[in-house]
């Protein structure tokens, strides 16, 4: 029970530390050792070597940087964009809201990952384009949530009281709406991070993400599939990394939601 409690925290902390400080470790993700191609784990490289004789652990750390970088940026951009659009749409109402709602519907009608593939395909491969593509898909969730929350908050008495006191609109949105709708949005953001890690891996798997020799967990899996039977560690290592990170972030998100939701807290 205690292990289950600490475990996701450990995994996420490890991921963060490797992503932030991995650059300072004495790693050589690009060093090719032709005599060690596809070799399994050994003392110098505890996760073995890939099809070009590069150490898998070093590349895994590099992949952690990529996935974290993408997840962070996509989350930030979609969060800010989505919250702004959703809140304003609900606050202003009228035709603005009508247009935004239709736009959200259109985005939701197309499967997100397909849209991202199409966008990334059009813009060409590259990390920046992956971030842009995923953000274009990601803002919709935040916008929908922020809009729904704002609509219910908008008619609360304290907002009416502020209007009656002559408080300016911008100030009302900043003081009376944003702080109150932040809790569910933050929970949404944690789940968003997990989703983005998978989406980035997916795009990289299709070759739309980082370009060689840069590493990403998705591209590592793609390279590894060809040798799955002879060297399963090439697929297992990044695959497990993705699974652990996504699972842990989701578990933390669940816990955060329970914590922020006063109703589910016992007396």
């Amino acid at each position, binding site marked *: 029970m205690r292990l289950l409690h600490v475990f996701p925290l450990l995994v996420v902390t490890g991921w963060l530390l490797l992503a932030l400080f991995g650059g300072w470790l004495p790693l050589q993700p690009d060093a090719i050792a032709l005599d060690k191609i596809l070799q399994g784990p050994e003392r110098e490289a505890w996760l073995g070597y890939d099809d070009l004789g590069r150490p898998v652990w070093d590349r895994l750390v590099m992949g952690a940087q990529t996935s974290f970088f993408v997840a962070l940026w996509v989350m930030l951009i979609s969060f800010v964009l989505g919250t702004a659009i959703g809140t304003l749409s609900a606050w202003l109402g009228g035709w603005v809201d009508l247009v935004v709602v239709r736009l959200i519907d259109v985005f939701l009608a197309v499967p997100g990952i397909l849209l991202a593939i199409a966008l990334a395909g059009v813009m060409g491969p590259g990390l920046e384009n992956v971030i842009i593509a995923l953000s274009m898909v990601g803002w919709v969730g935040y916008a929908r949530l922020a809009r729904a929350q704002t609509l219910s908050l908008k008619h*609360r*008495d*304290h907002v*009416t*009281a*502020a*209007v*009656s*006191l*002559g*408080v*300016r609109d911008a*100030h009302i949105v900043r*003081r*009376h709406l944003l*702080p*109150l709708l932040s809790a569910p949005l933050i929970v949404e953001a944690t789940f968003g991070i997990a989703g983005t890690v998978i989406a980035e891996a997916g795009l990289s798997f299709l070759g739309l993400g980082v370009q060689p020799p840069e590493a990403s967990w998705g591209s590592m899996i793609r390279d590894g599939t060809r040798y799955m039977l002879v060297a399963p560690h090439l697929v297992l290592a990044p695959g497990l990394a993705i699974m652990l990170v996504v699972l842990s972030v989701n578990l933390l998100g669940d816990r955060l939601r329970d914590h922020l939701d006063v109703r589910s807290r016992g*007396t």
Partner: protein
Amino acid sequence: MQQPLLEVNHLTTWFDTREGKARVVDGNSFRIHRGETFALLGESGCGKSMTALSIMRLLPGQAQGNISGQVLLDGEDLLQLPEAAMRRVRGNRIAMIFQEPMTSLNPVLTVGEQIAEVLRRHRGLSGAALQRRLEELLAQVGIPAPRQRLGEYPHQLSGGMKQRVMIAIALAGEPDLLIADEPTTALDVTIQAQVLGLLKELQSQTGMAVLMITHDLGVVSEMVDRVAVMYAGQIVEQAGRADFFAQPQHPYSQKLFEALPDMDKRDRLLSVIPGSVPPLTQTFQGCRFAPRCHRAWELCHQREPQWLPAGEGRSVRCHLYDRRVPHPQQTGEAPQPLDLAHATTGEVLLEVRDLKVHFPIRKGLLKRVRGHVYAVDGVDLSLRHGQTLALVGESGCGKTTLGKSILQLLRPTAGEVCFQGEDLTRLRGEALRRRRRDFQIIFQDPFSSMNPRMMVGDIIAEGMQAQGIGGDREQRLARVDELLQQVGLKPEHKFKYPHEFSGGQRQRICIARTLAVNPKLIVCDEPTSALDVSVQAQILNLLRRLQQALRLSYLFITHDISVVSYLADDVAVMYLGRVVEQGPVGAILGEARHPYTRALLAAVPRVHADVPRQMVKLEGDPPSPMDPPAGCHFHPRCPQASAICRECYPEQRQVASGHWVRCHLYS
């Protein structure tokens, strides 16, 4: 004397909390005889509902086993019964109806199915016999066209109808005892009168006993035979109805009466109970009311009073009635007088002319307007400086919409709102925003009207900041301190958050917030209807003191006639979006002309000692404002309606100086 139907002995119920054991019901004993109506009277949190739930053994999960004492139903101890046997008692021998008919009915089952459940379980009925009994029951609770209603779902019924269905469910088991937990609190007065009348009628037909749980002295006065007053988990006084209303004995009961707003108390402040109900987790040394009691002396703090007989069939738990102990000299409390001739200049502050607020109903793919809700439909009002205009009406009559549209929080569809000669409906943008400081609003629910993430100091200062008044930060902080003191709070409260305060304190904070911008007019939208009587008295006193000191004008929106009689100068009665009668408070309450006003006033339960009078009942429910009846809106329910009432809406007529009425009877 015959054996009582229900005998409760030393009933104690407790909850295990972090602070220790909370005894929500503490050693209570009472008896209910067959056919009798017994009331448990008390303010919120005094444990009256918990007493009822303990009798039914329906306590929330964690407190399930935390009951001690005896609950004897015909001599059989319910607390000793196994759960399976208890299930045969519930709904069968003891039935219960709750406050909120909305949430006590299952929304996905038909009305008939919900009543049938009881009949199948406890009466073993099925088939044609079941159907016959169902129709009989609905007819018995006064629901027209029972056969059709059986197939309907709860959302298709009005609030009063739902409560009738709840009563039918309770009656289905032919119970010996009916527990009614605030059965009419969520209903309008005219509907309340219908439901109370129905309960009485059914009781005389079936001979069942009723345990009525209520906070409303008026309901007690109209309905019951005997009453027990509860305070902080304990019954402090038991008496027959007539004795109790002639002379309540426990100081707490006396205070409840004195705190009731009333026409006779207009010239003074209402009596209040200082402090608040003590936490029930402590072990009480003396009398638990002593810290708030104006007649308490040392003994009260040291020793818990025992039950003392105080005449025929009545007893009280108070040292004052103990002849064996010496009493200190009485110190009578003089009521604080109010200067009634508050300086009114007679000049008109607010003039509303033919105000209309229509909400479009949009339907279909293209959101075409398919009709309107005529929330406010042509209202004229005027309010003079330093005076209080009360807007009275039942829920859904448009009084809140009217209040908000006067303040331009909702933009009116048509009409004028002249505030000091300036038409507010023409103001836009920055000009309106600047002008807003002159008119403010106080809401019914003080908690939702404050941002839970803001500190009290910031909440109060917000208006000054927005209007750019009150000087620099220092000066504003000083002004916040001053305002807090003005509404009876302490300056250090400004660093706390709203959830740390009680309901009454929160309402004080809301009042301080409106005062911060020095308004001339305050719209009070049911500011005390969520509060207990003793807290209501504090808020009403505060509002009246502020009115005198600051020459404020109030537009007081309420459904509570006693509050109106206490503080209004003028009254306007609304029905379905229109004002049907208006005039000075004395004229409206004393010589009402419009049949609706008369019915409304008659439906209000009176607090008095004499034999209960026959309540005047207004039949039916108010119609929908989406599709108001042609002619006079009131004619379908009016006992005096004639042909002309169905054809055209009556013009406004003056029947006495300043007393206007819209009714064909006077044209």
